């Protein structure tokens, strides 16, 4: 459906580098990256607001790289929504329909349909200045959707929405996608990507550094940057050692881990989720379990309980529930043992790439 071929664009102090991506009909593609990664610039190049220096954009097999913005059949909802402040909600939604020179009856019916779909029928006579962030978001979506775009581009659609309203916007976007609307959604929020995407592309410094389904990307991050985005905090650069058909590794700080069966390169970066690290006073039982002695450095409240930082040569982060904390009553400076299963350790990328993001 949408395909870009090696798109390059140099802007003042930033450039998009050889961006090639494919979005299939009905996909919900989320472009994830920090601010300044080039996500918005990429959207503007795709929809034609900014011409690329190099590369091509195809929509339904047609090369639209040089096509006029108005004729591409792409809808874009800007981060700041860009509602027309001097028009009512109804006139905002009507604006593109007037340009399409549709008969009045058809225009009115389309506005009504879009308003009902977005649940804004009671707002039609209001001016944008009198709307909340969530209402504005729905009006901006309605205004774009009445044009029946082949593909809908959303630039940080949750940015101006209160946390309490984000769920309803998410539900609405999922419904749109289920009804067949292909969506490319730009965000910096990992949670948004996980909850909405059928495919994810992670952008960094003007390049897409990893792409795939959310499970592929977040369970098997290709590099430290993506792993951090996926919420990993425990990183260990290690050298792998094989002896008598079993694998182990030694971190740069000389901590030794047992590893699960498999094949490993000579060195690489290992990660482990904080939820898979257990902190206790007596250690965990089991032949293969890694038990490492250390001292609690810090205990910080987290949304689900507490995050404990343990210094054991390397630094380990472990999550513990409120209940677990009430039972164990860990304190800073206490001697503890961090335990984790070898299977919980994951190799980042192919292990050989030492490029840091």
């Amino acid at each position: 459906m949408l395909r870009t071929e090696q798109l390059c664009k140099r802007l003042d102090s930033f450039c998009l580098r050889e961006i090639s991506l494919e979005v299939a009909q009905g996909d919900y593609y989320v472009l994830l990256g920090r601010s300044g990664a080039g996500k918005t610039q990429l959207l503007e190049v795709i929809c034609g607001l900014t011409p690329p220096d190099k590369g091509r954009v195809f929509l339904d097999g047609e090369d639209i790289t040089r096509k006029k913005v108005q004729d591409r059949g792409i809808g874009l909802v800007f981060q700041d929504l860009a509602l027309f402040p001097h028009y009512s909600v109804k006139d905002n939604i009507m604006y593109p329909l007037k340009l399409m020179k549709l008969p009045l009856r058809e225009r009115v019916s389309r506005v009504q349909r879009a308003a009902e779909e977005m649940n804004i029928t009671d707002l039609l006579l209001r001016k944008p200045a009198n709307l909340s962030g969530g209402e504005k978001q729905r009006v901006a979506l309605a205004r774009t959707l009445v044009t029946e775009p082949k593909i809908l581009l959303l630039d940080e659609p949750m940015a101006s929405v209160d946390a309490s309203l984000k769920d309803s916007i998410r539900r609405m976007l999922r419904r749109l996608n289920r009804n067949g609307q292909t969506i490319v959604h730009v965000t910096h929020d990992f949670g948004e990507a996980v909850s909405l995407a059928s495919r994810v592309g992670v952008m960094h410094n003007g390049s897409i550094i990893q792409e795939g389904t959310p499970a592929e990307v977040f369970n098997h991050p290709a590099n430290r940057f993506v792993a951090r985005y996926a919420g990993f905090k425990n990183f260990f650069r290690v050298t792998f050692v094989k002896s008598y058909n079993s694998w182990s590794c030694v971190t740069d700080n000389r901590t030794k881990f047992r590893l699960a069966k498999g094949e490993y390169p000579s060195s690489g970066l290992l990660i482990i989720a904080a939820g898979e690290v257990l902190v206790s006073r007596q250690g965990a039982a089991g032949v293969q379990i890694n038990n490492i002695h250390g001292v609690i450095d810090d205990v910080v409240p987290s949304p689900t309980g507490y995050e404990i930082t343990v210094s054991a040569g390397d630094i380990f982060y472990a999550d513990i529930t409120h209940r677990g904390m009430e039972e164990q009553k860990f304190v800073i400076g206490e001697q503890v043992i961090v335990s984790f299963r070898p299977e919980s350790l994951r190799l980042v990328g192919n292990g050989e790439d030492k490029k840091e993001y």
Partner: protein
Amino acid sequence: MKGHSLFNWIFAILASLVLLFIIAPLAGMFLDSSMGEIRNTAADPVVRRSVWYTLAIAFTATILFAVGAVPLAWIMARRKFPLKNVVQGIIDLPVVLPHTAAGIALLGFLSRDGLLGGAAQKAGVLLVNNGAGIAMAMAFVSLPFLINAARDGFAAVPERTEKAALMLGASPSRIFFTISLPQAWRSVVSGFIMMFARGMSEFGAVVIIAYHPMIAPVLIYDRFNTYGLSAARPASIIFILVALVFFVLFRVLATERRQIFRREDDATD
């Protein structure tokens, strides 16, 4: 707190002195003229004709030159191009020129030996000593007020709304008339008022282009030269009052519009 109070007093006194400097001569002029003199002057057909003539020409000049000035303001706000600073300097030039020098420059351009004047004469139109010349003199010195105000207005329009309109299928001209201009309207109107006000009060450039037909500032000067201060004063008062009425009227219209916008902004907050 005491220091703060002293600061307020000093500033209040300094501000009052400046306001007094503006008000005192005008008040003196009103106090030194009797109602009878003012009434007689107001009934004088020459004075009446002159005042209406001044307003009509200033208004016409503002409207006509706005046709080009508003697009120029939009270009200055939205486009990047080489020597943009030089163009901005050219726009501001009439503000810093002595107005009589502006009049001399215009005379060379509009007289029958000049570039535009010569071409106009071939078409049977004279640009000196008539309304067309006066309008051009007024516009020459007052255009920067409209262009700069409108430019600031267009610059304040969120570019994203223009891009959104483009994404929704609008042509550039449609975007200008339906998105950019309506949002910049209050600045354009404000510039319009300033250009109109500045144009109708112009003397230096106009008197060199056309002593006759007499616009109000030239008439006041003529009365002063011919009959002295006491004859010029009532004519001045009449013109000031009429100009004030128009100025305040336009300002009120613009302010009401601004307050509507502000109410909408407040509602968002």
